[in-house]
């Protein structure tokens, strides 16, 4: 480093680096920075998305939203999704990883199966689960009836009180595989001596897990939770494909409402205000995480 930076070659290298960075940085500026800035600007305007005419309306898009039942409901659903994403797929993924962690026959095939749904497009997940949830002939209802639980069967996607939880069921099946492989890799890298030592000290499996394994798994946990939060903020495809946000907006999240208001009702100003709300929410939850990760990278390479 000290040798190269003193030579004239270093400044030429800098030029080469700048040239390399030009295209990615340009794409980033044009497709991220500018659109985000434009969305913020549009959120203070009234615009139908097509005409050249835009009217400045100040904060009116925001005040209208925060007095609107649909919007507040979407916001609450987003928070529900965040809680769901932070708890359910990581827990199931960790349980599956622990299940396969000790020697087990057919480990490879189980791994393939548990991770498989994560490869599939969310639209395909939605299409299959709509059929599973079909209220009269769907697999879930039929299986419940054959178990004598028919009375508990629901119109899963048609009942506003449970539709969001029904979609979460599909999302759990779809996403648990991601947590599963991260935790599997984490468990493989654990120092087995620590766990062996705890076992020799007479700890039972439960104690060993909570006092030794789980704390040692922290690097995997932080990755899983961080990326789950990102996924929760981006939640759109599976809700849109399963219910379009319905029935009667019951399963709406900010992103589906935004999409409907923008491209269904051509109210770009209000849609942008919803987008900005989502951006602020994402920033509150995710910026501390990126800062932590960037510092972590710096530290491990220092």
């Amino acid at each position, binding site marked *: 480093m000290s040798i190269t930076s003193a030579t004239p070659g270093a400044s030429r290298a800098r030029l*080469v680096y700048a040239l390399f960075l030009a295209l990615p940085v340009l794409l980033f500026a044009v497709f991220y920075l500018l659109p985000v800035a434009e969305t913020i600007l549009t959120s203070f305007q009234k615009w139908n998305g097509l005409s050249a005419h835009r009217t400045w309306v100040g904060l009116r898009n925001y005040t209208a939203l925060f007095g609107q039942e649909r919007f507040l409901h979407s916001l609450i659903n987003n928070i529900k999704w965040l809680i769901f994403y932070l708890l359910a797929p990581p827990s199931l993924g960790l349980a599956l990883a622990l299940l396969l962690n000790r020697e087990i026959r057919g480990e490879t095939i189980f791994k393939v199966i548990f991770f498989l749904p994560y490869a599939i497009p969310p639209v*395909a997940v939605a299409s299959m*689960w*709509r059929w599973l949830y079909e209220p009269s002939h769907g697999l879930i209802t*039929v299986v419940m009836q054959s178990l004598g639980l028919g009375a508990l069967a629901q119109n899963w996607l048609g009942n506003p009180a449970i539709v969001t939880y029904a979609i979460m069921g599909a999302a759990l099946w779809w996403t648990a595989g991601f947590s599963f492989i991260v935790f599997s890799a984490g468990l493989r890298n654990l120092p087995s001596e620590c766990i062996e030592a705890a076992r020799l000290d007479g700890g039972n499996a439960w104690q060993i897990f909570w006092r030794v394994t789980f704390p040692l798994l922290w690097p995997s946990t932080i990755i899983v939770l961080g990326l789950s939060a990102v996924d929760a903020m981006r939640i759109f*495809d599976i809700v849109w*494909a399963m219910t379009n946000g319905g029935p009667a907006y019951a399963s709406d999240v900010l992103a589906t409402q935004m999409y409907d208001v*923008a491209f269904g009702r051509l109210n770009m100003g209000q849609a942008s205000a919803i987008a900005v709300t989502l*951006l602020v929410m994402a920033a509150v939850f995710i910026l501390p995480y990126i800062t932590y990760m960037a510092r972590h990278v710096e530290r491990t390479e220092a």
Partner: protein
Amino acid sequence: MSASSLPADRDAPIRFAAAVLLSAVFLAPLGMALLTSLKSPAEIVQILSLPHRPDWGNYAVAWNQIGRSFINSIAITLPGALLSVLVGAIGAFPLSQLRGRTGMIIYFFLLTGMLVPYQIVQVPLFDLMRHLGLYNTIPGMWLVHTAYGVPICTFFLRNFFASVPKSIFEAAMLDGCGPAGYFFRILLPASKSGLAALAIIQSRSIWNDLLFAMTLTSTDRARPVTVQLNALTSGLEVQYGPLMASTLISIVPVVVAYLVFQKAFVRGMLGGSSK
């Protein structure tokens, strides 16, 4: 048989049974889709029964409905993944070398892009792509997927390149190679496994995309299979036989890629998330 391995042996059958049961639950939606796709309309309501005689007609109907969009998806995904990996690589190389303040600031900026909800940019993007004349075109989708792939690809490959020993770079410099020569002649060929893993996970996310495709395509000219499948799914009269056939057709490429390149696939997922 030592004392410490005894408990493991004792509950091994229980764990195996649990794994089998869970696998059955994980495979049930796919298995049910497969059975349904082979049933005639009369049989479909008998969800638990096997198809009387496999009815492949559903697949013919399905291909009629989604064939064109399936081909569009291939035309979007393959070049899109290739371009995004290439652009990611040229961004990642300088960032893996510039360990000072400038490098970190650019890196941090790109990272924020990785975590921004994509919905935020849809309205301006729709406008931008129409003005560029790229609305509802396949090259437009390449551009969009490349641009929105920049953060993840740069992040992934920067970490990969940073793990290449510095001494190789220094040796190349002493041989008069120059940074560009080092990148093309040494670093890229040496990074094949990382580039392949990234190409696979990029292919998955491009193939699976619904949001960008919904905003930026409107007809058979560029509409990918996810949008077409979504239209079929939310149709008023859903025919589950052809729909399940369409669904299975739409997942074949990603599932095959996953099964064939399983190691690279998992490595890619982990590489995009860790470090």
